[in-house]
């Protein structure tokens, strides 16, 4: 037990005063009388005589002493201190770049060393996703952003990756490096392209690899392989090793014609504008060069280019007051005055390019190879205006950019193939002791209550005695 004002406890000596005063009161009352003659004749009772010589024990005195004791205790502000250990706040930055795809078991084993009583958060790098789902990114990335974010949230930051990071924590933050690398031999495809009828392949280590041309497989070595002019698909594949993400590349050549496919609501005006272009070929392929989605949600696609018309998820369709066209390919052929829109929807988020804006907000924008058009037009307006097949012409050109050329899929950057070799396990002791919090339970009210109870008891007993 602790006391906020321990010096007050000296007042407990007043109990001695109380006892002394009680004993003093028990002394015989002196009464002067005219004569002792009669009183001398009054016989003494044995018991009272004895009691005159020693103090009488008194329950009331005991209760009074307890009242004094608990009042003094209450003034001293008693309390009980409980020391609680608080959980540590730890943020784990998980490297989910492609090389980590083979380190899942090691990462799980290291993370199992963390104490479940601690508050542990996870941030994946370089995606900045707050989870430990081990959804691996398709690219390498700088972990600095994830580590900075973690340092802003916790004093303990644990970096889990297959290679060290040069990032230095700010003052007050401790970085614990947990490396799950290991000496794993890996051969990967660093580069693959077809130029002038020749296949050029660069590997991390020169090893034999297989080349499949339009389904015909053969083994190749060296850097160059001849490719027939009629070939449309070339696959380059290395022997399987521990890290397989860099073991295969597929090169395809785009055709002169442009395959166009539709999804979602049917729109005859748009279809007519497309078919007016002689290069366009409407197909039902899942991998066209141009996929037009009308009134559909955003979703991944294997098409080279996706155009969204009236996409779902756009909020607040409204009548535009002003429309502006960006300077660029589309801007120079579409005057803003020609754009007749019934309603527009605001496209939030970040875009690589904004082609059209209404009232200062993007309504037609480009991200990657996708084009989003958040606009509804009148039957007489764009893009069904007779001049507007030109829009679709440029769009088809945009979608078919590189047609006839070879495009490689599955290439990784060089750092993805360089697997981390360093191993450094997690030492939970390095996290230090948990912070402790002294929680004081104040007992003053209890002392006051007890004093009041004893006071009431003494008062009741005294009243009964005097009754």
């Amino acid at each position: 037990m602790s006391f906020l004002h321990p010096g007050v406890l000296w007042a407990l000596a007043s109990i001695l005063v109380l006892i002394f005063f009680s004993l003093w009161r028990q002394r015989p009352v002196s009464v002067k009388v005219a004569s002792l003659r009669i009183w001398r004749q009054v016989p003494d009772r044995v018991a009272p005589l004895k009691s005159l010589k020693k103090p009488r024990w008194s329950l009331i005195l005991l209760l009074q002493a307890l009242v004094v004791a608990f009042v003094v205790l209450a003034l001293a502000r008693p309390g009980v201190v409980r020391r609680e250990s608080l959980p540590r706040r730890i943020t784990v930055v998980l490297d989910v770049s492609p090389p980590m795809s083979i380190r899942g078991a090691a990462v799980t084993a290291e993370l199992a060393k963390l104490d479940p009583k601690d508050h542990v958060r996870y941030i994946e790098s370089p995606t900045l996703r707050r989870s430990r789902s081990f959804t691996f990114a398709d690219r390498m990335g700088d972990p600095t952003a994830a580590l900075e974010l973690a340092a802003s949230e916790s004093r303990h930051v644990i970096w889990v990756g297959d290679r060290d990071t040069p990032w230095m924590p700010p003052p007050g933050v401790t970085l614990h490096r947990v490396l799950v690398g290991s000496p794993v031999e890996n051969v990967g495809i660093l580069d693959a392209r077809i130029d002038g009828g020749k296949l050029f392949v660069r590997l991390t280590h020169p090893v034999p690899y297989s080349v499949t041309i339009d389904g015909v497989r053969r083994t190749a070595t060296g850097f160059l392989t001849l490719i027939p002019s009629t070939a449309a698909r070339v696959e380059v594949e290395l022997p399987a090793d521990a890290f397989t993400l860099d073991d295969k590349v597929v090169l395809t050549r785009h055709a002169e014609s442009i395959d166009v496919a539709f999804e979602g609501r049917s729109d005859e005006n748009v279809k007519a504008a497309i078919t007016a272009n002689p290069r366009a070929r409407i197909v039902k392929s899942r991998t066209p060069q141009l996929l037009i989605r009308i009134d559909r949600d955003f979703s991944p696609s294997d098409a080279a280019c996706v155009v969204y018309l009236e996409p779902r998820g756009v909020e607040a369709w409204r009548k535009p007051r002003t429309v502006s066209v960006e300077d660029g390919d589309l801007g120079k052929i579409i005057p803003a005055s020609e754009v007749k829109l019934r309603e527009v929807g605001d496209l939030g988020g970040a875009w690589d390019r904004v082609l059209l804006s209404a009232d200062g907000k993007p309504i037609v924008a480009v991200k990657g190879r996708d084009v989003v058009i958040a606009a509804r037009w009148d039957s007489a307006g764009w893009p069904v205006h007779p001049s507007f097949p030109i829009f679709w012409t440029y769009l088809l050109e945009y979608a078919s950019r590189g047609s006839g050329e070879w495009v490689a899929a599955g290439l990784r950057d060089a750092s993805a193939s360089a697997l981390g070799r360093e191993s450094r396990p997690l030492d939970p002791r390095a996290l230090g002791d948990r912070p402790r919090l002294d929680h004081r339970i104040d007992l003053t009210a209890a002392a006051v209550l007890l004093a009041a109870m004893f006071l009431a008891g003494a008062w009741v007993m005294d009243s009964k005695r005097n009754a």
Partner: protein
Amino acid sequence: MIFDAEFLKRLESLRVAVRRALQARREGDRSGIRKGGSAIFHSYRNYAQGDDFRSIDWSLYARLGSLFIRERTREEAPDLRLVMDTSESMQFGDPTKSDVARKIAAVVGFLVLGEGGHVRLGSRSFSGEGMRHELFSVLENEAMPAPIGELRRVTGKPLVIAISDFWDDGWREALAPVIGSGASINLVHVLSREELVPTTRGIVRFVDSESGIGVSKYVGDEEVAEYDRLVKKECAGWREWSMSREVGYFRCASDEAFEQIVLVLLRGEGLLE
């Protein structure tokens, strides 16, 4: 102030009553001799109801089996000897026993002086009605001599009125020669209410007011009952002793109505019907 205007007024009305009584007695007495009190033996007569029992001749009763009153003649000038106890033990009560004693002495002295008698108080002597104020002054302001010593100085056959709580030992021994000399003695036994009905309870140390000696006792209901019995026994002892010696005895509490005390006393003395 013991003798205030109210007291003197009451005293005057008492004196009138006493004088009427005395005058009536004189008119009924052919010999013109006042009877009773400290006087010379005159004759015997049969006892009649209401006669002062102190006048009964007990020796004659023993011989004859009948009650006879011894009649005495009184001197024309009554001689009153006041013996008052104003010691420390008499300072108890509310009013104090000492104040009551002084008032009783004043009343009796006043009446005697009014009848042309003499009053002796210690070494002081008062005669005649004109000295009553001086008597009051002495009673109120001066210390009274020790009563037992005073009894030893009684000579002749005066009317002796001794007023005390009679706690001191030696009273009876001191009264014996006075009784034997033929003086008419009246004892006024004054006790305080606390002496008659003690209210103290618990562990008590009783301290004698005069000697300073203390006695510790536990006082409960049983002790108080025993005390009451012993006090009554003490008073009864004085009454029996007085009766056996033809000494007048009257007991009162100091807080009783003063008029009642005086009237009973005077009736007993025969000064009032």
